[in-house]
């Protein structure tokens, strides 16, 4: 009853679709880390309006489901004259959404750094920029690494939502094949192993990085 043949027959097409999963994940992750660090800095700023703006950002991008954000970006923004290609809309939206989650992870990690360090740095006259780039961020990245890896893995899987703007990645392709062959179990398992392969690479890279950063 279980048909391995179906899996072998459709694997090449699934792997082709995986290119989109990878593309959106990699670009979305890079954007998410960058924007996330900025939002996190805003959340910890002394200026009230920056803190408010960061809180609003996190509230919106974490609160409204990514699926809906994508629908809004692609189908409602054209109404007010903003019309971007599907792939651009997908990457930007996924990245902005990931940034909200990543900024929170970074904030948690910064909380775990003993306050004495910042005080000591201030006492020896270190500039705030150096304090951030040399002391706080490297440690935050280290402490937050497993949680960041968690988020990245979630990002790879969340990239399946970009199908709503018409991009055919792994999940969408597997649904289509399942529907034409009437063998969803086989195809979904095949898709699962593709995701697993991608995510194992991410997890392994995370562990190697963790070991390198350990002191």
């Amino acid at each position, binding site marked *: 009853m279980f048909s391995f043949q179906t899996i072998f027959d459709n694997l090449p097409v699934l792997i082709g679709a995986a290119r989109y999963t990878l593309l959106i994940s990699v670009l979305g992750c890079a954007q998410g880390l960058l924007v996330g660090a900025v939002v996190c800095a805003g959340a910890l700023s002394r200026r009230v309006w920056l803190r408010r703006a960061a809180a609003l950002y996190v509230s919106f991008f974490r609160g409204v489901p990514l699926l809906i954000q994508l629908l809004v970006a692609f189908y409602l923004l054209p109404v007010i004259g903003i019309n971007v290609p599907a792939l651009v809309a997908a990457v930007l939206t996924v990245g902005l959404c990931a940034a909200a989650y990543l900024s929170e992870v970074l*904030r948690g*990690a910064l909380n775990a750094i003993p306050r004495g360090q910042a005080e000591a740095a201030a006492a020896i006259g270190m500039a705030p920029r150096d304090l951030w780039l040399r002391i706080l961020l490297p440690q935050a990245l280290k402490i937050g690494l497993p949680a960041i890896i968690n988020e990245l893995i979630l990002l790879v899987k969340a990239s399946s939502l970009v199908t709503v703007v018409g991009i055919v990645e792994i999940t969408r392709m597997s649904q289509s094949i399942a529907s034409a062959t009437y063998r969803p179990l086989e195809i979904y398992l095949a898709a699962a192993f593709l995701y697993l392969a991608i995510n194992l690479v991410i997890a392994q890279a995370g562990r190697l990085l963790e070991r390198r950063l350990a002191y």
Partner: protein
Amino acid sequence: MPDLLHRYGPDLLTGFGMTLFTWALGTLLGFALGFAIELLRRFGPKRLAWPIRAYVEFIRGTPFLVQLFVLYYGGPLIGLRLDALPAGVLGLTIYGSAYFTEILRAGFDAVPKGQIEAARAMGFTDGVIVRRIMVPVMMVSALPALVNFAIILTKETVILSMITVPEIMFQTQTMMSETFAFVEPILILALFFWGFVEVISRLGRRLERRFTHYLLERS
């Protein structure tokens, strides 16, 4: 919109309730299982390390949609026949446990070793060290990530619609296909989740203040 709300109001309310219920149960059980797994990894026999890692990587590495599909539609092939709701909650629990375990691992790793050594030197038992030192300190760094993941789980609950659990996505999809209205269902989903997540993150902030209270007082 008023017509639609009148017609679908009761269904939508059921949907909200079902989403809240499955989320709360899935998150609590997932956290409990994740915590247990992390304790087992940290204090249990060494030979468990590898199976635990395989479990975490497998569950984390594959989409919830696929896990749930296999559990519900594939389970009966090997004699595991669950109703939709138990299957949904079990699925969420398993999925959540893998992520929670990883977050807790990072949190415990961030606890300064000196504190644990000092406690051990003073003759505290493992149980006391975990409860009184490791958990409170771990929570400081792990709480935002835990809240993050609890929020992500709110959105994973919509996948339960695939196995016919009548949660909010199930209800709005029905509304959409019966009437062909789409702005209204999208708006309802956006507002519901935004409100829901806002409540969770406020609760998270409150918890966070509680755990970081002693840090803030110094500055």
